[in-house]
């Protein structure tokens, strides 16, 4: 950026504006109800992606009311418009680029003073504003009344009082959109700045006067300079600026003084002496009971989501086996070649699995969505903050880790509650280290075959390695994904509990199921078909399959890490699904004639394996298998939730590398021991 354009990143205004209609940007502090508002307005007309070149999520959508089209962008960000985080920078750049005709600022009526800070911080930006005072129902329950008309007069902009969770209340918002666009009145706030900072403020205003800024007034820039704003200071570093902590604090005080005067006579009533921390919260945040309660609720949630899904899953796993015999008879009746029967059976089973997975998605989305919606997640973030901040994550990441013990996909879904994109991706990545149900099954069968009861020690060393790898992964990925934000301690609001909004909750569940189903079917069936093709042999002898040829061909290489061709093939196939490994092992050790699809475990698998593999080789396989990427459905949901192919591939590469390193280490250590 050159000196002349200074603080405004002047982008082509046509960038996003290829359609007609009003462009709205949503701004507001966390828990003000932005997501609720956005989801109600746009319904399923949403697009979620990332801001170009940034590790920040971008949500855009559109809606049509009374024949007019509106485009809406949910601006990321936290409590202010400072340049503290990527989210806030994205928000600022978006406003500066002129891509919004109108900014809607959301404030929480039940904590109006605090949440009006965003309005104060916005003052001086020249893009028109509508103020939405949300959660009016909560304020009413507190006995507060808010005089919207008077506030409108004082601010000079439309003010809408509403509850974002009530559909009928959106009419007043739509009406406000039809009113002429207006900018915030700033005189009173700027007078406060002048009073408190005198020439320091006016001098800086002079200095920033000639900046070529369409949307940021010189006063706004001056204030950001006084707040030590990194982004703006960098561009102006030639001048000697009057920067000090005192000035930053004075500016903050001015903002709240202005808010106090602004709201004087506008908010009336409200019980002062209501209980500040409810009984439940006393337990939920207690140093003794907080963590057990969170774990208990989570386990309960897991059980609930399984209770919802198990009948469904049972049905969908069983269905192919019930239907398939008929298909089988039909196909053989037609005289179809053997491979068609084998392929269709494989695909049938894959369909069953996918449908079962959709059930799991539904169950866990519902449970997680519920815990999030009522406001409990903030408490989880609080109690696990200490533990999780060591690996650069939020306390909320704990949820995803616990879910992963059931299924790695649950981990990806659980990570949804983490509100920073980078930390969410890191959470999903680390959750892959948690052994899922399939991993347990294979490790226990394989382990007992070779090591009997001593498998316990192997498991313990795997856990230990997991912990170390977790630290390494956090170190490797956090600089890019999390950056510096995590080095600061927690400063967070614990929002009041709200009744769950069943309507939007179920809409969320259905949209997740839909988007998973759409991709899963094509993808799961595609990948399954590829694996089937690689492992198919017309005569049932594995020696004639492509996978055998490939496996034996590179065995000299895979033996470096202690994997024989059989275990290497099982390792590769376990990327399709961990539990698939047992079926593959059964067939490569020559007892079952089909590799992919049936997943049958032969009863004498153990004896057969131990006649071929040494103990060191078995150990190598166990480690390779344990640390491998969970399954491609997990990969798929990682891609789905992160919207980033690049990061998905990076994380996959990391795990495959780690798995091979672990395999080699186990192999050589094993050779020393046995």
């Amino acid at each position: 950026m050159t000196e002349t354009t200074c603080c405004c990143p002047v982008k082509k205004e046509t960038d996003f504006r290829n359609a007609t209609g009003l462009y709205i940007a949503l701004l507001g502090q966390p828990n003000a109800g932005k997501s609720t508002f956005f989801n109600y307005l746009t319904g399923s007309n949403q697009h979620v992606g990332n801001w170009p070149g940034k590790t920040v999520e971008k949500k855009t959508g559109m809606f049509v009311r009374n024949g007019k089209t509106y485009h809406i962008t949910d601006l990321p960000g936290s409590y202010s418009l400072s340049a503290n985080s990527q989210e806030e920078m994205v928000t600022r750049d978006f406003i500066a680029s002129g891509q919004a005709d109108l900014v809607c600022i959301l404030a929480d009526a039940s904590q109006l003073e605090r949440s009006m800070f965003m309005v104060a911080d916005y003052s001086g930006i020249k893009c028109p504003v509508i103020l939405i005072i949300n959660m009016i129902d909560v304020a009413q329950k507190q006995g507060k009344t808010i005089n919207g008309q008077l506030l409108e007069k004082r601010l000079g902009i439309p003010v809408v009082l509403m509850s974002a969770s009530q559909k009928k209340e959106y009419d007043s918002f739509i009406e406000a959109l039809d009113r002429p666009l207006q900018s915030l009145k700033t005189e009173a706030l700027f007078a406060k700045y002048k009073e408190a900072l005198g020439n320091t403020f006016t001098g800086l205003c002079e200095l920033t006067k000639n900046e070529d800024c369409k949307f940021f007034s010189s006063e706004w820039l001056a204030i950001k300079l006084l707040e030590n704003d990194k982004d703006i200071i960098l561009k102006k570093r030639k001048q000697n600026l009057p920067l000090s902590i005192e000035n930053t604090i004075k500016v903050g005080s001015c903002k709240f003084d202005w808010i106090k005067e602004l709201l004087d006579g506008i908010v009336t009533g409200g019980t002062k002496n209501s209980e500040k921390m409810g009984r439940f919260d006393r337990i939920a945040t207690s140093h003794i009971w907080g963590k057990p309660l969170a774990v208990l609720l989570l386990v309960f949630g897991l059980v609930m989501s399984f209770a919802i899904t198990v009948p469904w899953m049972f049905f969908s796993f069983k269905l192919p086996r019930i239907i398939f015999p008929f298909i089988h008879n039909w196909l053989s009746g037609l005289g179809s070649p053997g491979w068609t029967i084998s392929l269709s059976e494989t695909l049938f089973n894959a369909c069953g699995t996918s449908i079962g997975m959709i059930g799991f998605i539904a169950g866990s989305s519902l449970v997680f969505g519920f815990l999030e919606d009522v406001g409990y997640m903030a408490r989880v973030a609080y109690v696990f903050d200490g533990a999780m901040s060591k690996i650069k994550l939020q306390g909320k990441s704990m949820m995803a880790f616990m879910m992963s013990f059931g299924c790695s996909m649950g981990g990806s879904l659980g990570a949804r509650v983490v509100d920073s994109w980078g930390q969410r991706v890191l959470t999903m990545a680390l959750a892959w280290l948690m052994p899922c149900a399939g991993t347990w099954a294979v490790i226990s069968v394989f382990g007992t075959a070779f090591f009997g009861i001593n498998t316990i020690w192997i498991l313990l060393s795997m856990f230990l390695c997991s912990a170390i790898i977790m630290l390494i992964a956090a170190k490797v990925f956090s600089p890019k994904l999390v950056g510096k934000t995590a080095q600061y301690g927690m400063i967070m609001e614990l929002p009041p509990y709200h009744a769950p909004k069943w309507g939007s909750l179920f809409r969320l569940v259905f949209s997740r199921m839909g988007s998973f189903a759409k991709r899963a079917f094509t993808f799961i069936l595609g990948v399954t078909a590829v694996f089937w093709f690689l492992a198919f042999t017309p005569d049932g002898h594995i020696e004639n399959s492509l996978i055998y040829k490939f496996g034996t061909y590179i065995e000299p290489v895979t033996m470096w890490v202690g994997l024989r061709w059989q275990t290497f093939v099982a390792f590769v196939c376990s990327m399709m699904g961990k539990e698939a490994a047992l079926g593959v092992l059964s067939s490569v050790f020559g007892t079952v004639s089909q590799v992919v699809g049936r997943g049958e475990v032969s009863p004498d698998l153990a004896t057969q394996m131990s006649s071929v593999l040494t103990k060191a080789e078995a150990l190598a396989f166990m480690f390779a298998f344990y640390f491998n990427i969970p399954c491609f459905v997990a990969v798929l949901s990682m891609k789905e939730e992160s919207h980033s192919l690049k990061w998905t591939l990076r994380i996959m590469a990391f795990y495959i590398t780690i798995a091979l390193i672990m395999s080699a280490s186990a192999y050589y250590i094993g050779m020393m021991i046995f």
Partner: protein
Amino acid sequence: MSTLNIQKTGTCCRVIGLQGDSHFLSRIIAIGLTPGCEVEILRNRKRQPLILFARDSMIALSRKESENILIKAL
């Protein structure tokens, strides 16, 4: 004058000053803890972040950060 981290659960106090780098200042100001603001300590136990009540909201604040908030008991 004292700092927030050593206040007992249940005490009420008023913020009279802030210390720290500008990143911290901007975050703590944005959540509403500016000089003059009244704060009630709802929870303060070793090795756990503090929970405060200020400006009608419950706020969780790490111990390290709370050392930088200067207060006067009320």
